[in-house]
């Protein structure tokens, strides 16, 4: 009897491991920056390169930082969703224009719509490195204390927006300035 049970058990264990493996996305590397203070940066604004923007200005507000570039194909697919979100005036979206030519970036926004309160030109990609950006687009949810609470890797999908990002933003907005709200409190973010 044992000689049939043992191979069967081995097979089942291997099958379960491989099955779970099929469902994982190796591209999605968990960010060590979640629940850590967002790296502070000073960058020129895309539409007014001589004026700079400091991420410190956003303390006290919940905001989204969306990493994008005109050369990024996947950014096109999420863009209409961001434009729609910006019309709702629910949460300010700032763009990190990552390793892009300002002129190309501007005409890209002119063509597809500009959902950003401001886009910040990270021409050399140094701020991108500080934020651990490795696949554009990426979207960070940052709370009132300037702590990163969530990161979407790749294009934001309507499902991710409805189930995770928006409920999380709402919770963060309702929380007091000192309260700690983690993304694990939103079911859709798990």
């Amino acid at each position: 009897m044992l000689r049939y049970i043992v191979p069967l058990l081995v097979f089942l264990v291997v099958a379960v491991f491989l099955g779970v493996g099929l469902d994982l996305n190796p591209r999605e590397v968990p960010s060590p920056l979640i629940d850590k203070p967002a790296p502070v940066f000073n960058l020129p604004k895309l539409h007014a390169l001589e004026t700079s923007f400091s991420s410190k200005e956003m303390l006290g507000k919940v905001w989204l930082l969306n990493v994008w570039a005109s050369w990024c194909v996947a950014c096109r697919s999420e863009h209409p969703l961001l434009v729609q979100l910006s019309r709702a005036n629910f949460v300010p979206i700032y763009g990190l224009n990552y390793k892009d030519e300002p002129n190309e970036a501007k005409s890209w926004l002119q063509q597809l719509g500009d959902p950003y309160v401001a886009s910040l030109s990270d021409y050399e990609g140094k701020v991108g490195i500080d934020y651990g950006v490795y696949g554009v687009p990426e979207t960070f949810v940052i709370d009132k204390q300037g702590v990163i609470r969530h990161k979407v890797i790749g294009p934001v999908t309507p499902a991710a927006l409805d189930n995770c990002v928006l409920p999380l933003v709402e919770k963060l907005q309702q929380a007091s300035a000192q309260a700690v709200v983690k993304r694990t409190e939103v079911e859709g973010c798990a």
Partner: protein
Amino acid sequence: MSSMKMLVILLCLLAFTSLAAAKEATPMATDPEMEKTVNAIAAELRCLVCQNQTIADSHAPLAVDLKNQVRDMVESGQSQDEIVDYMVQRYGDFVRYRPPMKASTMLLWAGPFLLLLIGVVVLVVNLRKRAAMMKNDEDLSLEENERLQNLLAAEFSQQNAAQRDSSQQKAGVEKS
């Protein structure tokens, strides 16, 4: 084509490949010693865009940026540990080609030894079982041995008798 010719052509091709490789490795830091350090550190870091390459091997824009970052940090006198920590803070442990020993990576580190241990246990159990079986074969009492001999002798004589019968029959068939 003779094998000699083939060999000569292969050798020529080989010479060219080494030329091509030599061309690619242009040191960027002014000090070749420093560039060696940069490359050694870059070889420990995973490129996050093309995940099975180190940032030393990869030509992805991010890998090039990160290598430049490593170079800047080496030039400003930071140690390998500091540079690796800098990368881990931003990209997580995944960026390291040698995973650290932690509670969450214990299975990764201990797994192969665990499997080896299981293998050894199975092997030992099986060997013991077999040894026990062989010992049982040897451990016959005198009586049992006698019985065995008798049985074997009986069997043998029976076989002989049967053979004799069949050969006689055959002979009979031939005669008639």
